């Protein structure tokens, strides 16, 4: 049987900007250039997706080719020669970025607007002196009536690179969103333009994460996220056992957004699910228990100081142990808590109270 996953691998060298670079069969020009630290701009490129060559931002000169070619899709072959910076490429980028700007929401400074999820087009446009083109304002439809609580689409920031729809198809594989209509009316839509809750969408939010221009954003995030001073803390998701890495964005001692590290860095390869990305309201929920509680002689729970509560716990457990022996106690640890906490719980059970009756919640 022939398995496409186990292809034979060949290495050879190619030349980029006159420099000899090691390349592996099956790689693209962008793959090799990135590894070598050579910058080629991209917008529609995502390492998790099949190359689309849609945005034309990564065009390079390939020796022997009459036209410029997309570096993200162009496969390497032995001894090929590539140029990534030239007058011709610079001219191409100026025209291309200017055309994108003519069909994009701009801010007072005339650049593509910044969003809470960044805008890579804005950064690219800073590198050129834009041509004076008439604004196009293509009539792309959004989904203003979509009541889903997490994902918002702003058609005025969309460059139709289709990263979101390809992600939905190739990675999450639910095909909830798609490119729809033709010409200037082309937009990102759902079947029948329904709200995402009425589609196969699983609310993973991968479309938001992959969007290069901030056309897709979190509805949950604060409106002023662009200007908000936030800190980012890398941590591990607290739901299932995959161990996805998260970046917790915090402001004023509150989590305001959760994102994944870049693809390729961690076990989740840039992906998150609906729970990991969005289900964080519980952290600051008003129902959180905020003070120790001790049951009084009236049978009700009453707020108590830590000292009172800790004494009550120690005395309660010790008196049962004295009366019935250590093995009349049971300690139920938690697979939701950290390794250190589980270590301490079994130490508490064994060393402090003298019983091996300790297990964790996932045991049954």
């Amino acid at each position, binding site marked *: 049987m022939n398995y496409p996953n186990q292809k034979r691998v060949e290495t050879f060298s190619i030349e980029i900007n006159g420099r000899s670079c090691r390349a592996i069969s099956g790689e693209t020009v962008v793959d090799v250039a990135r590894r070598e630290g050579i910058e080629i701009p991209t917008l529609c490129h995502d390492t998790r997706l099949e190359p689309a060559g849609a945005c034309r931002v990564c065009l390079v000169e390939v020796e022997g080719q009459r036209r410029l070619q997309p570096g993200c899709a162009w496969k390497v072959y032995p001894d090929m020669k590539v140029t990534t910076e030239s007058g011709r490429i610079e001219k191409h980028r100026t025209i291309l970025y200017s055309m994108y700007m003519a069909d994009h929401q701009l801010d007072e400074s005339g650049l593509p607007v910044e969003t809470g999820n960044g805008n890579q087009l804005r950064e690219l446009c800073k590198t050129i002196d834009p041509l004076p083109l008439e604004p196009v304002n293509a009539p792309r439809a959004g989904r203003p009536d979509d009541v889903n609580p997490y994902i918002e689409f702003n058609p005025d920031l969309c460059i139709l690179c289709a990263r979101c729809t390809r992600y939905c198809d190739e990675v999450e594989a639910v095909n909830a969103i798609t490119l729809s209509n033709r010409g200037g009316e082309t937009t990102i839509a759902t079947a029948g333009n329904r709200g995402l809750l009425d589609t196969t969408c699983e609310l993973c939010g991968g479309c938001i994460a992959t969007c290069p221009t901030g056309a897709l954003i979190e509805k949950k995030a604060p409106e002023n996220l662009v200007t908000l001073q936030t800190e980012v803390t890398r941590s591990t998701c607290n739901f299932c056992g995959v161990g996805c890495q998260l970046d917790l964005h915090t402001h004023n001692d509150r989590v305001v957004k959760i994102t994944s590290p870049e693809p390729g860095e961690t076990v989740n390869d840039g992906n998150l699910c609906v729970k990991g990305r969005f289900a*964080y309201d519980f952290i600051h929920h008003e129902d959180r228990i905020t003070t120790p509680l001790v049951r009084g002689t009236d049978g009700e729970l009453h707020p108590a100081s830590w000292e009172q509560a800790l004494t009550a716990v120690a005395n309660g457990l010790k008196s049962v142990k004295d009366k019935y022996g250590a093995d009349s106690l049971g300690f139920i640890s938690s697979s939701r808590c950290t390794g250190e906490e589980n270590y301490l719980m079994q130490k508490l059970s064994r060393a402090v109270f003298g019983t091996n009756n300790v297990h964790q919640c996932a045991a049954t």
Partner: protein
Amino acid sequence: MTNSIDEIRDSELMFVIGSNTTEAHPIIAMEMKRARQRGAKLIVADPRKIWLAEMADLHLQLKPGTDVWLLSAMAHVIISEGLHDRDFIEANTEGFDAMAEKVAEYTPEKAEEITGVPAGDIRIAARLYATTKHAGIYYTLGITEHTHGTDNVYCLANLVLMTGHLGVRSAGMNPLRGQNNVQGANDAGATPIFYPGYQPVTDSKVREKFENAWGVGLSPDNGLNLNVMMKEMAAGKLKAVYVMGEDIVISEPNVTKVEVGLNQCEFVVCQEIFHNETTRFADVILPGACFAEKDGVFTNSDRRVQRVRKSVNPPGEAREDWKILCDVARSAGYPMPDYENAGEVFSEYASLTPKIAGISHQRLEENVSGLQWPCPDESHPGTPTLHVDGPMIGRAPFQVVDYRPSAELPDNEYPLVLSTGRTLYHYNSATQTRRDAGPVAKQRSNFIEMHRSDARKLDLKHGESVRVLSRRGEVEAEVWVSPRMRPGCIWMPMHFAESRANLLTNDAGDQVTGTGEYKVCAVRVEKLSNR
């Protein structure tokens, strides 16, 4: 997992059994989808036509609880057709002949009668699995949550060993852990028979090591597992419990009995972030911290130790749980060391645990993708794939397994089989996910999935309310008529406190592990009229 999550994408074949991966482990499922799109074969064995079954080459829709028959019949085919790996068996295993003699009884034809899976499909699955090099088995609680859960796992291990799918990339035996730190909790010794790192409490040398480290004498007897603890509590023998971070009155099987036990307890401590069903029984509640509010490590399914970092403060008086546990120990008169931070706790734990001795918080700062144990010393890079040089200790034994039916089978009074589980949108007792708009918009309240032929018999329409009854209790839920189900079987999520699936489930436990039989119990469904 013997292998790593990122190896899945390079698989040639994935055998997924008892795992609804797209819902329970969505990000691992993405790797499986990626492998599938690159041309890997996919075999799914599950009583339900789960999402992955739709994209599978072969869906073995077995009756719940008949896994031993299905897997032994696959072994039968592999051995009778000579597809087993004789060199690997010779070099690394023992007990092949006894096992081979046993599985000779499990013919695919007889298996078809018991499991409902066509004999031809069993043959195809066995041949594909045995003849593909990079073939991995992926399973989760659909395998283990049975009274014969350990037998199911033995059968899978037999398949892995007889085909030599061990120590090979994108192959192996891969239990997907259900919670963020199941692996880490077990590793850290939150188990009645092992100190940290699976060192037996009955081994006097090991015990001496821990007695010296902790400065006290320790009990030489195995403790009670959680399932037995719950039963002893109901029998009035376990008199006090300290419950940290679990809602046992939702999560344990046959919760009516658990409630009886909690009522009888003389003293109950809960360490929690929200009030839940269990805190109703508490004498003292200690307010803990959620993952965003503390430092430490979680260990994921592929044995990867990764950092949890504090990003915000706990609310009000609430404290980091590791600090609370130290304070409780000190209040009880034990001289718990003055750990400056969670990293120092980890250092003590690692110093007593050879498997993770080379891991420290400091090293985890430098390794952004974590470190996978075994990692015995500080220069060790961690171990992505286990058993590359054969079994770790001695020879791997084949197991002789006899099929035993599930503890409770359907009858005239309770004619349907109920399995329970998790959905994509909620998480276990759902104290976290039911406080977020998306999961609530997708799944507001409890439901059962039912095949249309069963729904027709009971004159039920999609969305109607029903009462589900077992010998242990009853709950109300909505009916979802679903093409995913087998006739005769229903499925219910475990997330809803006001309609607890575990009022119905059977607390009969696996003989070895005590794991409850959440996947098979007998129930009856009644229409709620005039509603």
